């Protein structure tokens, strides 16, 4: 008998999130990293007001993606080290459900970080990032690159230099998200007419859908022995 799909997804995500709410290890680590990264950016780019308006969406997305890399590695390493992944694989849980569960927990944590960063950057950069459209773009984008992150972390966590390889494997493939997400965010922040940010958001949603489908199909092959 197969385990029902949706309850399995929720159970796996809930397990990860429960572990995270109890330890708060990952989110605090990621938040600290993100804060430092924002600081480094503002010193390195020497952001004055005009430049800041141009680059704030880029800084936001790059920070979010780099911080999420920390999360992907941990989320998979933790499954591997305790042998939990093998145990889950032994149960008749559909592979897709395992993937979606891991994706959901990764995306929730990354999204939480995003929601911490948005008001923070609003305060630090003096620009209103707390817009429902920015939040929507963030949600869509986060799900997209978390899909790739979850798949590739499962892949690199079994290679020799796992921590070092994930960014190399992930960043080029995550580029479409950076491209479209910053484009949409920038248009929203600049107060550009609706079609401009809607177009970029639509492209972002389309890319996310394509990657989600691809990763869902391919995950089974990655964890199979």
């Amino acid at each position, binding site marked *: 008998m197969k385990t029902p799909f949706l309850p399995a997804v929720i159970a796996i995500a809930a397990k990860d999130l429960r572990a995270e709410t109890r330890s708060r290890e990952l989110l605090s680590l990621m938040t600290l990293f993100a804060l430092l990264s924002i600081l480094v950016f503002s010193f390195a780019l020497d952001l004055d007001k005009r430049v800041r308006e141009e680059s704030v969406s880029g800084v936001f997305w790059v920070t979010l993606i780099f911080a999420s890399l920390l999360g992907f590695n941990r989320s998979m390493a933790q499954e591997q080290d305790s042998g939990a992944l093998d145990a889950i694989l032994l149960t008749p849980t559909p592979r897709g459900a395992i993937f979606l569960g891991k994706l959901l927990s990764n995306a929730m944590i990354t999204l939480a970080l995003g929601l911490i960063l948005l008001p923070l950057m609003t305060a630090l950069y003096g620009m209103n990032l707390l817009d429902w459209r920015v939040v929507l773009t963030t949600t869509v984008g986060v799900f997209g690159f978390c899909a790739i992150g979850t798949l590739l972390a499962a892949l690199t966590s*079994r290679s020799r230099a796992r921590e070092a*390889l994930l960014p190399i494997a992930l960043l080029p*493939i995550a580029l479409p998200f950076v491209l479209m997400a910053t484009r949409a965010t920038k248009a929203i922040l600049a107060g550009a007419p609706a079609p401009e940010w809607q177009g970029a958001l639509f492209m972002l949603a389309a890319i996310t859908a394509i990657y989600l489908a691809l990763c869902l199909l391919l995950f089974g092959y990655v964890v199979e022995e």
Partner: protein
Amino acid sequence: MTENTQSIAMGAGQAGRPQPRLLRVLTLATILGFAATLYLGLVAAGTDIQQGQVQRIFYIHMPAFFGAFTAFGLTVLGGILYLARGSETWDKIALAGVEVGFAFSLINLLTGAIWARPIWNTWWTWDPRLTSAAIMCLTYAAYLMLRAGIEDRRRKRAFMSVYGILSFVTVLITLFIIRVVPETIHPVIVGASPQNAQGTFEATSGVVMALTPSLLLWLTLMPATLIWHRVRLETRLEALQNRKIEILSE
């Protein structure tokens, strides 16, 4: 005889086999075709009125990209078929596709830079299309690094099939970004150029005459021949490795 040594014997037998006649014909056709298209592009085609001799690089530049497209496309095909059927040959084709495609896209980038120096007055600019082409190269460089980092052979093959399929998205982006992102300065020769395109030239009958054979050659014969040779080489390498393990374990 154990299963392992049997496969070693088979591998060694395959590796030692002389080149199939079709491969020799393909190799010859590729070399002759390359010489012919070079002649067409460098000698037969007229010199561009505005850009002069440097425009001729286009007859290599654009076909090289499409050659990479075919090679990376074969990687996707090899990946899918390896995952579906589990035959090692498909994985070797996928690996060969990455290496050949990587070489082609480097040719594409280099020739582009050489052309851009006199026309755009810079070797490199962070144009959307140039950037995405560079990222495409980096993705496949990452493929090769990742491949070297996984020890277990079966796992390596499955993982790299997955990564090879995913990587192809960067190729598609490079191909289509010019149509989506309007502020590129990269010219489109076939079809309407974007507004900001700099250094565009008309696809006159002379250009088409020199471009078409070159494009066809790079799309088909060049990658096919190189990949076939590379697959044979990989078979030999594997046989050699197996032999080494065999000797060391004795």
